[in-house]
């Protein structure tokens, strides 16, 4: 089962490395915080997604199996 890339919005400090490493999947908002594609990460971006997760200085990124994140 392919995973989703999620961000912990409290841990995230807006460093922006994730968007540098994975521009196909992550954009930065007007204040430097990541807007992440909510779909499951496709295979060809797997390695880049893992690199982004590892590179986050705040450890705010994760690849998760969960159902679609709803803010409910």
């Amino acid at each position, binding site marked *: 089962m392919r995973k989703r890339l999620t961000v912990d*919005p409290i841990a995230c400090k807006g460093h922006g490395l994730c968007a540098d490493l994975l521009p196909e999947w992550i954009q930065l*908002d*007007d*204040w430097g*915080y990541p807007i992440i594609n909510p779909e499951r990460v496709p295979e060809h971006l797997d390695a880049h997604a893992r690199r982004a997760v590892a590179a986050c200085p705040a450890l705010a990124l994760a690849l998760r199996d969960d159902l679609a994140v709803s*803010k409910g």
Partner: protein
Amino acid sequence: MPKMLSWPMAPPAGRQHGLPRLLATEAGSSLGQHLEDWGPMTCPPRALIDEVARAGLRGRGGAGFPTATKMDAVASRRRPTVVANGSEGEPASAKDKVLLKSAPHLVLDGATIAAQAVGAGEAFICVERGANTVVQSVADAIADRRRGGTQGVALHLVTTPNRYLAGEESALVHWLNGGDAKPTVTPPRPYERGVHARPTLIQNVETLAHLALIARYGSDWFRAVGSPDSGTALVTVSGIVARPVVLEVALGTTVADVVAAAGGSLRNSEAVLMGGYFGTWVPSSTAAAAHLGVDALRSIGTSMGCGVIAGLPAGTCGLAESARVTRWLADQSAGQCGPCFNGLPAIAGALETLVDGDRNGRAAKQVTRWLTMVEGRGACRHPDGAVRFVRSALSVFAADITGHRRHGPCRATPPMLPTPRSGTWR
């Protein structure tokens, strides 16, 4: 001669039909007087959740979630605990404070039997720390019960900081666990892992008071008032009345009738703020005929929220009111999530420009972009509520935006929606 205690019981004479229900009590009643007025709770705790499901009770804290579903989620887990949320950080709402002053024993009854029903041995009763008379009322009621025996459920009074978000469920849990009254990331949700890492049932104090009556008189009695949604609800009516008033109304009553019962009228009012500062403005022409209830309000793009009904008085600028509230909501951010603590002030600034007169149209474009940018990207629903509120203001007061662009801001009128000073997070 001991009375025969059956389940469900018939309500005492004078409390069978109609209203009021929750607000039928004299403030300051002792436990003895309370039991004489209402009778004891006779519902076997293990039967309560099914009865609440039959009654169709929904939460009265703002989300309107079915109460039985919430109780079930916790009852199926080990060593749960219960929180009665009376913190009421919503400035335009006073119903929880009124309830806790006039009928604290109903709330404590509800907390007690909810705890018994889910298998918890304690309940935390949370009240905002600045509300001294309310805190005293609850403290006195708990002390009264200690003298009489607490039916196996320990009740703990906890005061919460004077902040809008202190009553948010994860913030309340964080506070009870010794942290700041700031929201945390979920999952895990409180019903999975909350206070002291235990499955936690969090219910608004009004919800618990309704539970306390269902635990006496049953679901048929509860459903005898209110249609299509069952029961009564507490609402706070403000704006188009001389002073804010808390009323108990049957669900299904029209907004116009509620306002009339509060001594006001929507006749000369342009719009009504429904639900709270996380709710929506609705044109009065639409709102007046709307019946209070989930489906009816959803069909006009709004909801009960926490029962706020604030009518804009004639001559008061809805756009200016909205800008002021939005700035307050921005200031209430916990400052934890970038999109929220950056986005809400930016949105507030854009609204302030719209109030002054957005001559080049840039503020209108930016605010629309920012609303979409911020929505859903915080740890809690605070930015979502602000976005909902602002979107409704931009729609309902669109003519004002155009007017201000041409003529500048309206002549100032006294503020209508309260934006109180707040305290610390600890």
